[in-house]
């Protein structure tokens, strides 16, 4: 009996450890954004230097799209960029980009060197639009439905796994939704 008393702390710790281990598998970047199911913030961003089109809220009317915040200063964006290029080349989805707090010209150099996955791209040098989106860091990606509502927010670099597992099914589902109830 008294022997069991000395085992109690270990037993308690093992139970805690299991909770911690399971807790680790939960994705901490899953942050229920306050903007989920809300309409896109209103913005009208100028084009970045060297790219013709800008990017405004109404440009995405009726489309399911990814809005990706990036910056040439952002190290994780270097990792993410090839994944976006791959999605743009192989999948049928609009990717819109917002160049967040970049130097003039830096965004254009970035796209020139690494290719341009974005259909639309806007320049947000002051970070004003990023505040409306509640961005916590770069890169961050939002998915919007055909009615222009934000349906999903992903913080951090998109990896092929995350695209295949989480984002792509959602994009397809949103397309379906739009077709069923136009």
């Amino acid at each position: 009996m008294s022997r069991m008393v000395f085992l109690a702390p270990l037993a308690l710790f093992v139970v805690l450890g299991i909770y911690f281990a399971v807790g680790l598998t939960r994705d901490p970047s899953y942050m229920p954004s306050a903007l989920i199911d809300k309409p896109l913030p209103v913005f009208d961003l100028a084009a970045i230097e060297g790219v013709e089109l800008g990017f405004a809220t109404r440009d995405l009317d009726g489309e399911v799209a990814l809005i990706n915040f990036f910056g040439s200063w952002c190290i994780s964006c270097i990792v993410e960029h090839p994944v976006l290029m791959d999605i743009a080349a192989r999948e049928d989805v609009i990717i819109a980009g917002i160049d967040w707090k970049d130097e003039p010209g830096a965004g254009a150099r970035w796209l020139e060197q690494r290719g341009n996955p974005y259909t639309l791209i806007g320049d947000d040098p002051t970070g004003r639009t990023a505040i409306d989106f509640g961005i916590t860091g770069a890169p961050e990606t939002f998915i919007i439905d055909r009615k222009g509502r934000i349906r999903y927010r992903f913080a951090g670099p998109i990896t092929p796994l995350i695209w295949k597992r989480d984002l792509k099914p959602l994009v397809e589902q949103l397309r379906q939704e739009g077709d069923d109830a136009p």
Partner: protein
Amino acid sequence: MAAEIGQLALILAFLTALFQGAAPFVGGAPLQASTRIAALVQGGLILIAFLSLTYAHAVSDFSVVNVVENSHSAKPFAYKLSGVWGNHEGSMLLWALILALYGAALAVSNRFSTLKAMTLSVQGMIAAAFIAFILFTSNPFARVFPAPADGMDLNPLLQVPGLAIHPPFLDLGYVGFSLTFAYAVAGLITGKVDAAWARAVRPWALAAWVFLTIGIALGSWWAYYELGWGGFWAWDPVENASFMPWLAGTALIHSIRVVEKREALKVWTVLLAIMAFSLSLVGTFLVRSGVLTSVHAFAVDPTRGVFILAILAAVTGGSLALFALRAPLLQSRAGFQPVSREGAILLNNVFLVTACATVFIGTFYPLFVDVLTGTRISVGAPYFNASFLPFMAMMLVFLAPGAALAWKKGRLKAAIDRLWPALAAAGAIGVIAAWLSWPGPVIAALGAGLAIWAGGGAILDLLIRIKAFSSPLGAALGRIATLPRAYLGMTIAHIGLAVVIIGVIGAGAWRTEVVRFMEPGDVISVGGFDVRLERVVEEPGPNYTAERAVFSVERGGATLRNLTTERRFYPVRAMQTTEAGIWTMARGDLYLTLGEKSETAGWAVRAFFNPFAVWMWIGAGLMALGGGVAAARAPRRLTRRVQTVDSASTAAVATSAQGAIT
């Protein structure tokens, strides 16, 4: 080049730590003794690594990823240095550095013994685990190619002196408990936890506790003076993470005393030592690994979390398994009377550990709920206040009489007879406080009465001991120097605790708050003052524009002074900060902040009067001072039982004390 030197030093330190950990188990006496040298070498190597990173930050070497992500060429030099530990990788390196420095300090102090070799070995194992963690998952020396032209800078809110020095103090506290932990494990391995063991551990436990006390106080000071929300403690997971090891550590520094004096409570003390360090680990790491708070994905790397959990499982799980096997061998030598100093300390421990458990449950409850049901919730201040404060209140009830009880067998009635004036004063002040603060909460007045009982009892006991009531002042003051340091430190710390509680009750429960839209010329009254908004002006700053409001503080028509408060807007980061206008007085803080301007009604002004706020930090300072006094070695007196001299460094003190007596 600096980065490569650092990397190499870190790898060598890892190998040294492995040797330090294994040596006492594979070899005989010569290898045991070599742990000492290993600890010193490891300390030197980590220091080289840390200095290399510091150099990279100081010269803004943007080919190092860590510098790019956390620095900027235009950042003030002091913050370039504090930026070294203002990020995950660097703070881990600082952690390892402090761990190694504690090990090196232990290696050079005291006489060498098997216990110490074992302790250094356990330290070596912990160090090896953490250096491996740094090398494999959080390398601060990683390069980036091509090197960017400039860095990403640090949040301006974090570029304040209070925040720059507060993490190292917390780390000194957290990591200090690694030594008491190592001693506990070494005690379990050797099967000897006795008075000599307690004498060796106690100064380290006190040192860690003092640093943690200072670290927590600095953090709350920063929150109060810099964040401009008028509060000082929010029970958020990061704060709780530092508070839990503090509570366990407070229990530990009390129970260690019982082992030292009576050779009792051994098993419990060993368990507390394991708990204090485990909670430090949980505090430093689980909060960062993303298990608890939803930090940004950029900082979270699943492999890090797994590594941390593995370390925690090895350290805590391993030590608790050892505890289950070996603790039954630790026999208490002395009998145990419930009414005695050791009985009172046990009671104090029960309250502290229960309070710690309530904080733990509140902090981790969201995690438990998430794991079981998948919903995200948060536990707020009401839970913590309702569950934590009653235990603190009960602890205060027993503090003064408990501390006045004799060891072995005390008499409660005698203790209360001795301290009745403090009890009377507490009752009177409680009633007066309830009357003055009406219709404020009566429970707060009760708390104030308890604080007076605890603090007043400690002061009264001190006065009686130095015969202040029956001998001339000079002679009575002279007796203070002859008191045992442990007693003197305890008394100072207990008075400090009472002072902190008065401050917390004042600023927490008795605060008055007025929020009003004001135009220049308007007056609001708060805390007995009339505060007049004189003017609001636009002020350009170096990298921000500010709206500065000037208030005049008046009482009875006479202007006492001006207070200014600012709202700053940083256009580049699109960030807004508040500089509160604070007038700190002994009886309370007048605390003004400026809010948004409304189109029609003027500026939103928030005015607080926080009674006794400054006493929180004065009290915390007293507690830390008390811990320091108790840790300092007492001059040996001939009346005391001759003890084995365990240090060469005390020889000088001992000789001078003997000289004074003969």
